[in-house]
């Protein structure tokens, strides 16, 4: 299985994705115009049905391009999210923190975290038990999941 490559830049798409979108949209629009032009030029219904089929084909071509565009964007965003917040392996990070593991928070945060959580990396933290954090109105972090 190939590793998804994260696009570097201000948007989650590459130039190739944009080209595919433009080509398919242009082809779809062209087929639609052709279909309308052809259907308008004849009064024979069987010929018109053939032109309508051409129009439906144009719609399908454009739909394929649009789907590819959205999927490539979602894949790039997902891959980047996975790079930043890898899924915790079962039995390690996802397991509930034991009583001895320090759970930390920092000023102005609304959640408490495991000490190694990237969301508190570099912050001045203070440790306390989960019960004390909860009593202070804090919720467990959704990234490191210090589930109690």
């Amino acid at each position, binding site marked *: 299985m190939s590793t998804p490559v994260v696009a570097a830049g*201000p*948007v*989650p798409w590459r130039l190739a994705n944009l080209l595919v*979108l433009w080509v398919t*949209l242009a082809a*779809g*629009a062209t087929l*639609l115009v052709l*279909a*309308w032009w052809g*259907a*308008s030029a*004849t*009064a*024979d*219904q069987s010929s*018109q*049905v053939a*032109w*309508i089929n051409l*129009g*439906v084909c*144009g*719609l399908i071509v*454009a*739909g394929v391009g*649009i789907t590819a*565009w*959205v999927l490539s*964007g*979602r894949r*790039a*965003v997902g891959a*980047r*999210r996975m790079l*930043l917040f890898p899924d915790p392996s079962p039995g390690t990070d996802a397991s509930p923190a034991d009583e001895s593991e320090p759970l930390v928070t920092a000023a102005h945060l609304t959640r408490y975290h495991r000490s190694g959580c*990237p969301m508190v*990396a*570099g*912050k001045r933290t203070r440790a306390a038990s989960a019960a004390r954090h909860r009593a202070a109105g804090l919720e467990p972090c959704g990234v490191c999941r210090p589930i109690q």
Partner: protein
Amino acid sequence: MDLLNYVRNQWDRVAAWVFVVAGALALLTGWLGISRTAYPAEQNPYIISGGLAGIFLLGLGGVLWLSADLRDEWRKLDRIERRLSDPDSP
């Protein structure tokens, strides 16, 4: 909020609404065209120019809106990455 600034920053969402409205108008125009004639040979072109083109425009509006959402999420990941590498960054 200044309208021009909003249009400049959210051009894809504004364009999405324009395409959605244009698609709805195309569908309405197609329906009006078809309902004004009893001859199928005159109705068929409206199926393409009104129906299929309307669906095409609605799809364009949808893809622009979804692209804007993905772009926003990408920028949010940018900010998170900057905060992780430099906690003092804004």
